[in-house]
């Protein structure tokens, strides 16, 4: 029960005060891409959540098995990246081989959902926030939910970012930046500062 409560707490924190996207500034490029394809936003977010979980598990395993200092400390970023790449390759191989219809549906966004700064940040965050395994899992799930909320909110807003009354210079991406900036300001009410 306590484990579940911790998981849920960190999931909620990942959506609110420790939101990686709006207060940490990580993953905006992917959120924008997901928002541009609203029909696949749910699948995209689901994949991001799954790979984030896998990356979090990788960080937990690495933390338990690898030595704290020495070569492991220096090579940590490379090891995490190789692990992320391996997870992606394994998932792509399995789906290509045994579920080709599913693979064909997710192929356009599979690599970008698996290989991005949100996914890669999970093992690092475990050390920064001193998270236990269940807290990490909750945080990873919450990050997936935050990604979905962000891409859904942006995709709705993007439709309004090209109206004729807008100054031409602001139409499209500049207005999106301002929109995301003001939304990031809204999350500021929870954190009052930077995440890292």
């Amino acid at each position: 029960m306590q484990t579940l409560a911790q998981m849920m707490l960190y999931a909620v924190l990942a959506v609110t005060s420790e939101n990686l996207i709006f207060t940490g500034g990580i993953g905006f490029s992917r959120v924008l891409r997901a928002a541009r394809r609203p029909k696949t936003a749910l699948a995209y977010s689901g994949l991001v959540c799954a790979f984030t979980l896998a990356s979090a598990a990788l960080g937990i395993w690495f933390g338990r098995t690898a030595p704290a200092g020495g070569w492991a400390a220096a090579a940590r970023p490379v090891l995490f990246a190789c692990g992320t790449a391996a997870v992606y390759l394994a998932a792509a191989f399995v789906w290509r081989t045994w579920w080709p219809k599913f693979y064909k549906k997710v192929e356009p966004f599979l690599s970008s959902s698996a290989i991005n700064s949100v996914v890669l940040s999970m093992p690092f965050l475990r050390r920064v926030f001193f998270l236990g395994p269940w807290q990490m899992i909750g945080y990873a799930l919450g990050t997936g939910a935050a990604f979905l909320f962000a891409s859904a909110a942006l995709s709705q807003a993007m439709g309004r970012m090209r109206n004729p009354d807008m100054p031409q210079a602001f139409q499209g991406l500049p207005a999106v930046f301002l929109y995301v900036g003001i939304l990031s300001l809204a999350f500021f009410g929870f954190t009052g500062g930077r995440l890292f």
Partner: protein
Amino acid sequence: MMIRTKTAPFLRTEESVGSMMRDMLLALAALLILPTVHYGVSVLKLAAVSVAACMLAEIAGCLVAKREINISELSPMVTGMVIAAMMPPGAPYWLPAAAGVFAVLAARIPFGSTGHTPFNPAAAGLAFATAFWPGEMFRYAQQSPAAALKAGLKPEAVPSEMLWGLTAGPVGTTAALVIAACGLFLFVRRAANWQIPFWFLVSAAVFAALFPRILVPPFTSVKYEMLSGSLLFCAVFMMTDPVTAPRTVSGGALYGLLGGIVLMLMRRFGVYEQSASFTVLLMNAAAPLIDGAVCSLQAERRRGREKEE
């Protein structure tokens, strides 16, 4: 057949937008009467500076964007008055000016001005000022009830003082009775949708009763939470912005309900003693999602009914 397209707010005639803005301005001006009596002419100067900053920013923005400058456009004035109402009595004049300039140049002009803003510009300006100058935004002569509640203490002010604006707080948000009267005026004149503030206050009250921040009976907790900070002001003047609120009736009710919960959560877990502007921004972002969900649900129900028939 000529197809005429209109932009939000979707009211019956163009004159209605102007009359709505005029009613808003009247209500906001009425809010400043009691604070002027309490604190002096500086309150009016604050409002004048805020409105002037918004208007000048609007003119500058229109010149740069090569848009027609419409001085009868009252929307920047409403923004300026809302910002002024949320300022502390002794605020330096540059504070509402900075908030007003940000509100117009970052949250209004780039999105196409009236009818197109995804966020309430006044809320964006106030959030900006709070993030950058929290000390100035919450500087009062004595501890405000909102600050006391944030610290887990029972406010020293009695509810009757909080009804007439005799407590520390932003100039236009402390007199609960006056805000209620202004709200009633706006609802009768149909310048604001009553459903949003109603559900907003209901959900905030229920939250306050179930999860009090101080060790008092539920009713006392509700009393203090409702009358402290800028909750009432936010409910009447900011959540009801017709451009940023949901278009559907059920969506508006849901918007109000969720907004109340988010505000209470921010009061409990957020960093600042007053989080109304941040709440409004979050809910503005959620409004299109709420509308989309409501419309999909209604379409599903209609399809189900048609199948049954």
